[in-house]
């Protein structure tokens, strides 16, 4: 273990030597180990664990390593500039993360997006959700040492990123929803390619089940590990698939439907067990439901002709050139009003279901060109507390398993 440096600058006699982690003795048979913030098993966060032998007795999630003062930065920018800023919280889930901000500002403006724009928002939200779950699977796979499960979801995620790229013009940072609508209509032949991707993904999930989720080796590592009981899940206020895997029915798409989710036919799977394996199954089932939503959205878009995808307040001031470009290219050009937009005085609150759970925005305007306050509570920030209560009692080997199954994403939590 060369290269290990203790607190005193040399390898101490009593110090535990773990590659990549910093540790020190704090009592009889009790060691404190700092995992992260550069450790591959923890991302941009540090988990301080105290271990007795191989058993964790105390855990302390230490977040904030990628804090970018996003709420404060938002106060210094015009309203529309907030969209590309806030989507940097979780770039692979960009539409879900920025949608509540757009919806909160729409509430203040007193406008609503046209129906077609709502369907297009749902389309990109679900594409993002699938891509984000696959990203989580990939990270989880490499945590438990299953490198096939690292390669496959990242390869299949490319399918969804390619579709999102085609729809919006960017792979990850789409900046797709704007106040009162969306920026682009679906290109020709897009829905056919989307249907192919849906059929492909269904087959692929069956293969994931065979090689990973139902693989006896993986099952032995995940089953009954990191159990979050139902009452603890409610008490800690965790959210998203982790909450639903513990047997609690809470999904913003179901409890407080936004956009067109109340018109679509899909299920909210709720698993009862609350362990790491149930959380993986939860995500697999949710991908299936997202595929179902996408199928319905594709049918709707095929049936209905192209109509304006920006609210009349903006679209009626658009010059003829804008309308011509929308008809030929499907690109809804923005009117210069967007840069100088003044939002009426007031407070608004909006939430959405991202891939990692509920995200809420509180937006306050003083009637100016810039927001007075934008408060964001992201899903990962609420899920981080789980580590403190779930890790004790497990072995060190279970830490990556639990961390991966929670699908914690530091940049989203730190904002």
């Amino acid at each position: 273990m060369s290269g290990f440096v203790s607190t005193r600058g040399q390898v101490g006699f009593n110090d535990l030597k773990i590659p990549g982690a910093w540790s020190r003795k704090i009592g009889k048979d009790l060691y404190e180990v700092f995992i992260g913030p550069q450790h591959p098993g923890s991302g941009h966060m540090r988990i301080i664990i105290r271990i007795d032998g191989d058993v964790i007795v105390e855990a302390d999630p230490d977040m904030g390593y990628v804090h970018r003062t996003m709420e404060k930065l938002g106060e210094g920018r015009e309203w529309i500039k907030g969209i590309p800023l806030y989507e940097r919280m979780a770039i692979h889930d960009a539409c879900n993360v920025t949608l509540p901000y757009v919806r909160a500002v729409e509430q203040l403006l007193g406008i609503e997006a046209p129906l077609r724009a709502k369907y297009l928002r749902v389309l990109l939200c679900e594409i993002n959700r699938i891509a984000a779950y696959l990203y989580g699977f990939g990270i989880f796979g490499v945590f438990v040492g299953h490198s096939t499960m690292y390669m496959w979801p990242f390869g299949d995620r490319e399918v969804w990123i390619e579709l999102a790229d085609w729809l919006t013009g960017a792979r990850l940072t789409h900046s797709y929803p704007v106040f009162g609508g969306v920026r682009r209509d679906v290109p020709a032949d897009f829905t056919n390619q989307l249907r192919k991707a849906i059929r492909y993904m269904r087959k692929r999930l069956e293969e994931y089940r065979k090689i990973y989720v139902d693989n006896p080796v993986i099952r032995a590592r995940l089953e009954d590990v990191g159990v979050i009981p139902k009452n603890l899940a409610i008490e800690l206020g965790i959210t998203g698939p982790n909450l639903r895997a513990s047997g609690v029915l809470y999904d913003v798409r179901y409890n407080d439907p936004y956009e067109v989710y109340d018109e679509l036919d899909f299920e909210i799977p709720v698993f009862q067990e609350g362990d790491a394996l149930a959380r993986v199954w939860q995500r697999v089932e949710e991908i299936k439901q997202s595929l179902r939503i996408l199928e319905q959205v594709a049918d709707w878009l095929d049936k209905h002709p192209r109509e304006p995808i920006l609210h009349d307040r903006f679209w009626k001031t658009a010059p003829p050139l804008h309308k011509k470009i929308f008809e030929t290219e499907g690109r809804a050009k923005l009117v210069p009003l967007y840069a100088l937009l003044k939002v009426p005085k007031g407070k608004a609150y909006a939430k959405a279901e991202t891939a990692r759970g509920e995200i809420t925005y509180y937006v306050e305007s003083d009637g100016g060109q810039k927001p007075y306050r934008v408060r964001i509570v992201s899903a990962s920030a609420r899920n981080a507390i789980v580590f403190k209560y779930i890790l004790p009692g497990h072995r060190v080997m279970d830490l990556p398993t639990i961390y991966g199954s929670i699908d914690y994403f530091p940049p989203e939590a730190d904002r």
Partner: protein
Amino acid sequence: MVPPKPVPKTKPRRGIFHAFKGNLEALMIGVKYFIDPKRFTLIYPKEYNKLREGYRGFIVLIKQKCINCASCARICPAAAMKMIRIPEVDEKTGKQKVKNWPVIDYRRCIFCGYCVDVCPTEALYHVPYHDVVYQNMAEMYLDLESFQKPPEYKAAEEGIPVRYIVDEERGLVKVPYKEGEK
């Protein structure tokens, strides 16, 4: 239309032969992809990804269409687009006057495409590529002359164009790019 509904679920039960069946299934899948692997790696300098029309790549100015309205500079979220003052002689009156023209700083640009979308006369457009090399940081701050020329696309000179399409059986597939495709 039917609203969403909750469905309680449990993990699939583990049967008596699970250890045997599960291992066999996993191995069979492994063998299947060992014989017929699914690869779509881009062999980069030899091939390059011909991106679709509408991709938000580097931005080019058409000076003849520009009406100096500064909308692009005002909406830029990263303050990459700036207006610079250039003195010129009016052709009709022959008087000296100063006009504002947009220039871009690619050290700051985030390729959100707001400037292209907000331009009232379509004086800005995206080129569908993003792999452009600059020698140093100072070169990335374009002046009015270089902002009007599409950036040099080296990969297109050396490589062959390919395109990714979605296939029902194999996911993403790399196919050679046919001329004229959008």
